[in-house]
């Protein structure tokens, strides 16, 4: 039986956090954050001319008395935030040190997704979870409110790594089905032979605020094995014979830096937030330090 994703102390610490979106998106329901829409809250926003059909209750009669013109009072609408957590569950995400507390990359990513989902639900935001593989492999429809926390956790705990990675196909499928703007957090190792660029473009085309959280295992970030090895790909079953030498490790480091650097550049150029994390970094530290430092959490 897998260990629970969170303990109660950790969840308490999460309650003090709030997801921050730099953009304001139109929500479906009233929430705890300001909306660009004018609505029914008590906070005055503006006036506009009365038009036929407007609710006469919001006519400012004092102004009519002074100016003899009908003006309608507008108030700031408070709406919920749509938070999409896209979790790469391809077989490559099953790699990692099974003995460590953090476990595989997928488990680490699920914990982060769970934490972000918990924070969102605690703030009455709308949370959607998509499981990515060769396509959109699983979906947790909109969850809202604290009552959906455990549904979220159960969903995340049930995710198993399998299949190949096809971020482009999976993200396109998600973007087609979920047209709401909002915050999208993509958790993946981004090691897709087909590249990640098309996938991100598909998400960004929906004008969402995108956070790319790249999760790597420590052995991926800094391989230490030596000798003649046959490396077996967890997704494709292909193998690559290598002789682990200093030169090969250096070349691997350069290629990894090119991958992470390329992702970072791609994101920054398009207003997205890139975050690189290895599974040996505690999730708490990631949430309280890294995500705060980039402004995702407040």
């Amino acid at each position, binding site marked *: 039986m897998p260990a629970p994703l969170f303990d109660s102390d950790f969840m308490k610490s999460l309650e003090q956090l709030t997801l921050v979106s730099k953009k304001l998106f139109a929500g479906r329901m009233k929430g705890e954050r300001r909306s660009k829409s004018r609505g029914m809250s008590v906070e005055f926003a503006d006036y506009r001319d009365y038009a036929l059909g407007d609710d006469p209750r919001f006519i400012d009669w004092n102004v009519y008395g002074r100016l003899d013109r009908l003006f309608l009072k507008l108030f700031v609408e408070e709406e919920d935030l749509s938070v999409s957590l896209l979790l790469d569950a391809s077989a490559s995400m099953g790699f990692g040190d099974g003995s460590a507390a953090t476990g595989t990359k997928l488990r680490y990513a699920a914990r982060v997704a769970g934490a972000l989902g918990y924070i969102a639900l605690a703030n009455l935001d709308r949370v959607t979870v998509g499981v990515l593989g060769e396509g959109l492999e699983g979906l947790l429809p909109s969850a809202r409110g604290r009552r959906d926390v455990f549904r979220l956790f159960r969903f995340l705990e049930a995710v198993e790594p399998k299949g190949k990675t096809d971020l482009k196909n999976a993200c396109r499928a998600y973007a087609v089905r979920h047209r709401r703007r909002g915050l999208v957090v993509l958790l993946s190792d981004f090691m897709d032979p087909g590249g990640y660029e098309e996938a991100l473009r598909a998400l960004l085309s929906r004008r969402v605020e995108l956070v790319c959280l790249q999760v790597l295992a420590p052995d991926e970030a800094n391989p230490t094995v030596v000798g003649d*090895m046959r490396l077996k790909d967890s997704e494709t079953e292909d193998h690559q014979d290598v002789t682990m030498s200093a030169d090969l490790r250096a070349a691997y480091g*350069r290629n990894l830096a090119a991958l992470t650097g390329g992702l970072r550049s791609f994101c920054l150029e398009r207003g997205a937030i890139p975050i690189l994390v290895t599974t040996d970094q505690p999730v708490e530290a990631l949430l309280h330090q890294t995500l705060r430092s980039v402004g995702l959490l407040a």
Partner: protein
Amino acid sequence: MSLLVPLGLLGLLAVPAVVLLYFLKLRRREMTVGSTLLWRRSVHDLRVNTPFQRLRKSLLLLLQCLVIGLIALALARPLVGLGEAGRCVAILVDVSASMAVVERGVPRIARAKAAAEEAIAGLGRGDEAMLLAFGSRAEVLQSLTGTAPLLRDALGRVQARETGTDAREALSIALSALKGRENPEVILISDGAVGPLPEIPPEAEAPVRLVLVGEERRNVGLTGIEVRAPPDPGAGPEVFVRVQNYGPEAVSAVVECRIAGTLLDARSVAVAPDGEASAVFPVPAAAVGLVECRLAAGDSFATDDAVRTLLRPPPETQVLLVSAGKHALLGAERALALMAQTVVRRMSPEAYAAGGPGDPVPDVVVLDGCSGTDLREGAFLVLGGSLPFPGLEDEGEVTFPTLLDWNRTHPVARFLSGLSTVQIAKARKWKLPEEAHVLVEAEEGPLVATLARGRTRAVLVSFDPFDQSDWVLRSSFPLFVANAVEWLSGAGERSRGEHQRTAEPLLLRPLPGVSECVVRDPGGTLHAVPVGGGGLPLFAGTERAGIYEVVSGEREPRSVAANLCDPAESAIAPVEKLKLPGKEVAAIRAVPEGRREVWRQAILLAFLLLLLEWYIYHRRSM
């Protein structure tokens, strides 16, 4: 570096096989990774940059190839060193008595053989070498050859002899053999005391290297023995022994003297540093047999710690007097009667001509005026007469020859006095053969001469001393007869103590008609010495100190003692410089390194690399 067996490099063909096996059978650890995407790119990058990166960086493969390469190299028997190719080396090994000196438990000859083995091992392809051993004479053990096993076989036969040292013959042989050869070289392995050396002619110039063996210089040895006549009439002879000390400290040496195995006496002799002393042992008059004197305390050089001589009874000489004249009989018999241990038998010339000397076989035949008598094998004193001796030409008669001089140093003519007053009426004028030695000479020609040819020795008098001169009336005549008989019979040589130095040939006295003599050496080995043909029969193999026995071929078996008795050989201190005429050669302690086979080192290195490969393999697997 050159290769003795270049075909051995065919073993390098195994390298591609190993490389192939490496790629086919390389054992790899399997490991599942999330994605091989980055690894694939990295390998691709490396391959693009360096096509042979995989080969170059595969340490194990590199080590395996090195191991195979080294084994192939070992099979090719590589030679390394600074020596020139195509050398021609003469290896001269000193086998004289001093090479038997034992130092720290190892005889010098063993060290010399080891040095020679090093020199042989240093021979490369195209090099040739010859092996000579020299003591008092040289022996070519192996002529020039490029086959090391032949040289090693020859080296195995080298052993120390108990003789003196004379490197001249060996060096001459070596230089002759190296003459005209490319890169000649002489390696002389010795303790340095090699005696005078010959001048090397410029055209036969070859560098001579003296490889020195030996360290010890202290030695006390017996370097001489003599049996002297007794100082008093009726007493026994005295055995005189010379003791020499070659050390820097004075020593007190105890010399034991034994006769026929029985201890006669022991004397303590004090010998100064680098000095000598003597010990004298009076011997009973009746004593006969082996006399051996020995140092009670031995040292590192045992050969000179004992000397021997054979004490004989006074010799008896058989003389056959062949004469027809009563005067002659009277004169000759009177002279012979003066000699002790002499038995005289008479015979007429006719009987001698008809039946020979008869029994017992005489030691000396005295021919008195027997013209035409054939000189058979044996010893003859010819007193006048015309003789058909080959090479001797009778040129007629001379009257009243004028005596000029005589050889006073010859044993036959010694102690003669008043010869110049002898009157001679008639004498034969002889033209003597080259081997004749004139003892008494007149203006007209030789009067008395000695002649030795083959197994015939003769003393010739060209006039009749009885009828044609007054010599028979002079005191010198019986003395002359006695001297002649003693010289012809060898009685003078057969002194009471009989011994000789090692390496001196043993003169044999075979009976007439005997075809060979058999000699037993101190080791008990029998040597047959043919005595046919011209020249004196000699046994030259007296290279060991001890007792030699002539067991057959002579009238009766006899023994001869051979001693080293060589002060130069007893001086065992190594000589650091070789004095060649015109230059000096400093000794070296090791054979100059030639081209040396290094296949053993290659195998050892291959083994170590194999261990390293094994270690790395397992370290990577851990």
